[in-house]
């Protein structure tokens, strides 16, 4: 009968109208500035550099300026300049550190390839999306100081990843210390020791990608 399809349609919209008052599934508006948005843990926006602690950020940067992320980044938005001198890192081994580490967030597309390929877990994905700058160039070019954030912040953003990364790094440090202690003991035991064992090469990149 002509018009029956239209009546059914009106029925559906009426059901949705009534539903919008009592059925949460039919009221989808989230009033954003008033109710803060609940981001999933895996959410990623721009990268940030992890530092061991908040007190001395430039001193305890995990990044050793190996420039793997600079080469792998598809839009080439990372710029690194190695330092001249070396600085002992968390495991006590002297490592380089980045004198200049800049990310142009106007170019970065938050694809997190840099996080995947970084062998030192030095760069992780941030969750800030309210990014506004007064000018397009300087405002969006984040330098080393702006990028560095403490490990505690990383724990706050991605708890499961942070725990897994800390577990792995802790194990590595323990292994490095035992080797150092064993080397020291061997040196103490036999006064004319052989040349100390070559410090372990950075963890081969072939391991499964950390999320």
């Amino acid at each position, binding site marked *: *009968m*002509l*018009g029956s399809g*239209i009546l059914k*349609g*009106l029925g*559906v*919209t*009426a059901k*949705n*109208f009534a*539903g*919008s*008052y009592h059925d949460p599934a*039919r*009221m*989808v*508006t989230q*009033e954003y500035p008033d109710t803060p948005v609940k981001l999933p843990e895996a959410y990623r926006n721009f990268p940030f550099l992890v530092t061991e602690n908040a007190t001395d950020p430039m001193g305890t940067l995990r990044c050793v300026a190996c420039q793997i992320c600079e080469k792998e980044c598809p839009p080439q938005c990372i710029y690194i300049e190695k330092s001249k001198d070396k600085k002992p890192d968390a495991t006590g081994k002297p490592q380089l550190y980045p004198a200049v580490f800049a990310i142009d967030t106007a170019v970065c597309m938050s694809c997190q390839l840099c996080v995947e390929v970084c062998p030192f877990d030095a760069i992780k994905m941030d969750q800030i999306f309210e990014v506004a700058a007064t000018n397009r160039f300087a405002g969006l070019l984040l330098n080393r100081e702006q990028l560095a954030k403490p490990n505690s912040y990383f724990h706050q953003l991605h708890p499961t990843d942070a725990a897994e990364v800390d577990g792995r790094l802790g194990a590595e440090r323990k292994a490095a210390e035992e080797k150092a202690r064993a080397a020291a003991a061997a040196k103490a035991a036999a006064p004319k020791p052989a040349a100390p064992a070559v410090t372990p090469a950075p963890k081969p990149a072939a391991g499964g990608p950390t999320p």
Partner: protein
Amino acid sequence: MSIMPPEPSPGLDLETAPLLVRDWIVHRFPDALQWFVHHLLSITVILTVFGLFFAFTTIAERKLLARLQNRLGPNRSGLPWFRSLKLWGLTQPFADAIKAITKEDVVPAAADKVLHFLAPVVIVAFSLLGFAVLPFGRHLIPVELDAAILYFFAAGTATELAIFMAGWGSRNKYSLLSAMRALAQLISYELPLILSVVPVILVTGTLSTRDIALAQGGWTWGVLPHWHVFTPWGFAGFLIFLVAALAESNRSPFDLPEAESELIAGHLTEYSGFKYALFFMAEYFGLTALSGLGVTLFLGGWQAPFAILEIIPSYLWFMGKLAGMIVFFIWIRGTLLRLRIDQLTRLSWKFLVPLALLNLGNAAFWALTPGWTGPLALARWAVSAAIVIVPFVLLGRRLTAGYAPRTYRYAA
């Protein structure tokens, strides 16, 4: 035009309260001016009431559509100085009005300045004229005309003139084409609109809206009101009136002119700022006036649905039914798709006009057989219903010949 209304019954009741206020004001002026002040007062009342009604129809439309679509709708606008006051968006229309007024009013260089300026003026003036004859309450009728309905349609047709002036005045090829298309739509739906009203005139025997509203008084067993919509021919006439009113005011299934599938935004392309707001307001005034006429003719005007509900003043019933019809139009807008221009005119000429003519015959049959009582009344209802339903089904089947939902086979 008698100046003095029928003497209101003594004692203050809500029904005649507005009349007492009016008489109190009118008598404060010298005799020579009383006639002028009396009409000036009713004009200002209509303008303020229906101006606010227009404002809150826009906000109601946006919030109702939002609720149909599982979202909230505008709820942010409050008062500028009372930031903390939570007003659920009620001041949104005034914010829109300020925006429309302050926006730059661009007039194209090649435009015909006179026509371009005159079009919104004419369209608002004529769409407001329709309110003069609507009986808002038992005693509240601005102008008691003997040929009220003829006056209403005379005022309505002039809006076509304004749309032509807008289309031609903008000196823009596409807006002229769209104005032509809008005119084709208006003219082709003028006929079903008037034909759907004629049965009411035939049965009540008068063109005056006040008498029509009075004719629908009374209830059988105190519960069933004698509104025209509860008779077969009245129901059919009401449906045709609804469809034609939707088309006349360019709303939902027929909003061809400003459809994006059209070339540009119809004859309103070259208008901006306050003139565009005027067109927008005229559309809503036209819609409200048509709904008011629909309420008066078919839904019993200011008559209360049940005898005991007479205590509520009549003008509240009228405004309630008017708001009900506007909500129905918004509901239709939230659901239905748009018709193509050829389907639209085919629907009018090949479906609505024949049905309206048959409905005219149906009303004649109804008017000639008031005497049938008892079992004959049932026969009367059956015949009248048959005259409506049978052609509806036959014409409907011919209209939708070849269109049906299909069933599908599956390959692998």
